[in-house]
C-alpha cells in the first residue's frame, strides 16, 4: 500500500518527465557530427602548424648555412614531424610502449600496476605500439599508421625472427587524436592471439576483444569482455598456454569509473574468452594487464595482504601459496614483478610516491623456489635506483636481478646482487622491457627488441633488434 511519500515520489517522477526538454535526436546528432568534424579540423590545423614550425626554421637554417656554411646538425638533433595521433593516458590497460610522452598505467607478465612508458612518433609517422611472442622467432607487432581520417592498426607477424614480415588488417577501430592508441595484444600460442581494446578511457573495465586462431588472418569478436561483474564462466584450473588477467569485480559504488576490487581471470588459449578463476589467492589483487607464466612454469600474481605487498604462486590454479614481500618507507604499491632463474625468484615491488610515478619500493629474494622470502633492497632517498621501468631480468651468473630505471631519457640499469650490493649495469634493451612467457620484448620507436632468453648472463640478455617497418 503506497503511503504519502510514495505518491509524492510518483508525482515527482511524472512531473520531471513532463518537464524535461528533449532536443530532437536529429539536432543532437547534427551537433555531434559537427563536433567530430571540428575536432578533425583542429587536428589538421595543429599538424600544419607543427609542420610550419619545423620547416620554416629548417629552411632558415639551411639558407643560413648556405651563406655561412656552419657545421651540419647531427641526425639526433633534427626535429621530427609529429604525427597527429596521440597516446591517451589511461588508468589501467594500455600497452602502448614506445617512447616519449606520459604514460598509462599498465602491467605485464606476472606483474601488476606498472606505469608504461610513453608512446610517441616515429619518423615516417607509423608507430609500433605493442609486441608479443610465445615462441622464439615468432613475433607479432601492432603498428599504427596515421591517415586522413585517423590511424589504422595493422598486425605485423614474423615467423623467422624478423627476416620477413606478413601484414594483416586488424578489426581495431580507427584511432583519432581524441583517443590515441590504447589496444593491446597478447599471444596465446603459435597462431593464436588476442587483441583487446578498452571501451572507454573513463572506465576501469569493459573491453572489446578479437581472437584469431590463424595468426591474424581472421578474427572473431567478443563483446563487453571483462565488464564489471558480468562474467559467468568459471575455470577451476589454468590450462597450459593460458595467461591470467585481472578484471574489476564491481564498479565502486557512487564512483563507477573506479573499481572496488579486482579478481583473477583466465584467458582461455583456445578461444580467447575469459573465465573467473574458481580458487582465488588469499590476497587483495593489484590490477594487472597480462600475467604470463614465469620461467619456472608457474603463475605469479601480485596483491597486498593487510596492506603489505604480497605475491601468490600457483602451478595450475587449484591452490595458491601467498607470501608477503614487505617494503619500507612510504609509497602505495601498484605492482610486483616476479622473475625466476634456477632456484632463485626475485620480487621487484613498485609503486607511487609523492615524487615518483614508477618508484622502486623494494626488492625481495627467494633462494628456495619461492618458499621463503627475505628483503634485499630498500631504496633510500637520494640513492639510486629509485625508479623501475618494465620487468626486471634475472642474472643467472650473479646471481642477481637487473632492473632498468624509469626516469625520462634515462638509460640506466642496475644489477642488484644476492647480497644486496648494487652496481650500475648496461641497460639490456632500450624501451620498456616486458616478460612474455617465452622471453623479453621491448619497443624503441620503430624497432622491436626481442630476447628468447629467460635470464641474462655475463654476455648480456640476448636481445636482438627486429625492424618490422624496414
Amino acid at each position, binding site marked *: *500500500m*503506497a*503511503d*504519502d*511519500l*510514495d505518491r*509524492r*515520489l510518483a*508525482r*515527482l*517522477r*511524472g*512531473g*520531471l*518527465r*513532463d*518537464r*524535461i*526538454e*528533449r*532536443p530532437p*535526436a*536529429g539536432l*543532437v*546528432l547534427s*551537433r*555531434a*557530427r559537427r*563536433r*567530430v568534424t571540428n*575536432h578533425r579540423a583542429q587536428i589538421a590545423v595543429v599538424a600544419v602548424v607543427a609542420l610550419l614550425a619545423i620547416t620554416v626554421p629548417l629552411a632558415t637554417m639551411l639558407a643560413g648555412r648556405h651563406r655561412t656554411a656552419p657545421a651540419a646538425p647531427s641526425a639526433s638533433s633534427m626535429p621530427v614531424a609529429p604525427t597527429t595521433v596521440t597516446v591517451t593516458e589511461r588508468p589501467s590497460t594500455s600497452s602502448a610502449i614506445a617512447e616519449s610522452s606520459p604514460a598509462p598505467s599498465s602491467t605485464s607478465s606476472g606483474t601488476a600496476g606498472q606505469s608504461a612508458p610513453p608512446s610517441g612518433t616515429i619518423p615516417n609517422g607509423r608507430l609500433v605500439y605493442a609486441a608479443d611472442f610465445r615462441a622464439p622467432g615468432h613475433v607479432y607487432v601492432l603498428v599504427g599508421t596515421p591517415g586522413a581520417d585517423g590511424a589504422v592498426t595493422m598486425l605485423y607477424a614474423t615467423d623467422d625472427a624478423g627476416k620477413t614480415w606478413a601484414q594483416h588488417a586488424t578489426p581495431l*577501430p580507427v584511432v*583519432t587524436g*581524441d*583517443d590515441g592508441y590504447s589496444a593491446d595484444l597478447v599471444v596465446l600460442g603459435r597462431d593464436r592471439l588476442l587483441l583487446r*581494446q578498452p*571501451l*572507454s578511457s*573513463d*572506465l576501469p573495465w*569493459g573491453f*572489446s576483444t578479437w581472437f584469431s586462431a590463424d595468426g591474424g588472418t581472421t578474427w572473431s*569478436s567478443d*563483446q*563487453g569482455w571483462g*565488464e*564489471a*561483474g*558480468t562474467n559467468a564462466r568459471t575455470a577451476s584450473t589454468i590450462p597450459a598456454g593460458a595467461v591470467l588477467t585481472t578484471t574489476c569485480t*564491481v*564498479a*565502486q*559504488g*557512487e564512483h*563507477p*569509473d573506479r573499481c*572496488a576490487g579486482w579478481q583473477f581471470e583466465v584467458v582461455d588459449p583456445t578461444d580467447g574468452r575469459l573465465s573467473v578463476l574458481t580458487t582465488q589467492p588469499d590476497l587483495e589483487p593489484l590490477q594487472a594487464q597480462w600475467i604470463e607464466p614465469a620461467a619456472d612454469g608457474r603463475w605469479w600474481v601480485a596483491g597486498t595482504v593487510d596492506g603489505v605487498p604480497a605475491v601468490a604462486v600457483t602451478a595450475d590454479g587449484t591452490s595458491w601459496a601467498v607470501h608477503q614481500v614487505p617494503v619500507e618507507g612510504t609509497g602505495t604499491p601498484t605492482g610486483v614483478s616476479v622473475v625466476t632463474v634456477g632456484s632463485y625468484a626475485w620480487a621487484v615491488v613498485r609503486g607511487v610516491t609523492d615524487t615518483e610515478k614508477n618508484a622502486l619500493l623494494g626488492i625481495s629474494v627467494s633462494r628456495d623456489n619461492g618458499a621463503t622470502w627475505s628483503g634485499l633492497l630498500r631504496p633510500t632517498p637520494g640513492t639510486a635506483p629509485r625508479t623501475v621501468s618494465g620487468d626486471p631480468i634475472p642474472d643467472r651468473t650473479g646471481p642477481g636481478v637487473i632492473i632498468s630505471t624509469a626516469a625520462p631519457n634515462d638509460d640506466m640499469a642496475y644489477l642488484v646482487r644476492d647480497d644486496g650490493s648494487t652496481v650500475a649495469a648496461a641497460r639490456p634493451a632500450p624501451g620498456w622491457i616486458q616478460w612474455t612467457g617465452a622471453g623479453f620484448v621491448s619497443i624503441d620507436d620503430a624497432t622491436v627488441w626481442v630476447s628468447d632468453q629467460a635470464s641474462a648472463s655475463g654476455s648480456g640478455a640476448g636481445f636482438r633488434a627486429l625492424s618490422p617497418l624496414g
Partner: protein
Amino acid sequence: MATDDEWFAQLYDASYPRLVVIALAFTGDLSEAEDVVQEAFLRAYARRGRLATVHNPEAWICTVAMNVARRRHRRRAMADRLLLRRAQDPSNGAGEGRGRGRDTPDPDLMAAISALPEAQRTVVVLHYLADLPVAEVAVRTGVPEGTVKSRLARAREALHHELDADRSPGVADANLLQEADDGG
C-alpha cells in the same frame, strides 16, 4: 554510418529522460542536468562504434554524464574558492538550491532528496525517479541488492523526517528493512 546514427538516435530517444533524472540528483538543477546529459551523448557519439558493443550503453553514458557533472562541480567549487565566495552562499554552487531550479515539481521533496547523503540519494533517484528495479540499481551502484534496500529504507526514513510526514514508517519502509535484514 547511417545505421550507426539510427542506432544512436534510438538510444538517445530511449535513454535521455531517464539519464536527465539521474543527473538531476547530482546537479540539482534541471537545465544543468539536461546540459550534462547532452554533453555525455556528444562525447559518446565520437565513440559510437565502440559503444554499440557495450553490454549496457545507457549505463556507459550515465557514467560519462556523472563524470561531466563532477568535473563541472569541481570547476565551479574552485571558481567559488578563487572568488572567495562562501561555500554555503545560496546563490551559487551545485549543492545549494538543489531541486529548486527551473519548474522542478515538488521542490520540497526534491530538496529533501538532494540533501540526502550521496549513497542514499543515488539509490532513491535510480529507483524512485529513474524507475529502475532494485536489481539494476545494485548493478549500477556496485553494491548488493540488500544494501540497496537498506539504503532505500534509510533514505525513506530521512525523507519522512525531513518532510515532517507521518513518522510511523510506511509499509514500504518496513518491507525494505525486512528484506535488507534477510539479505536482500
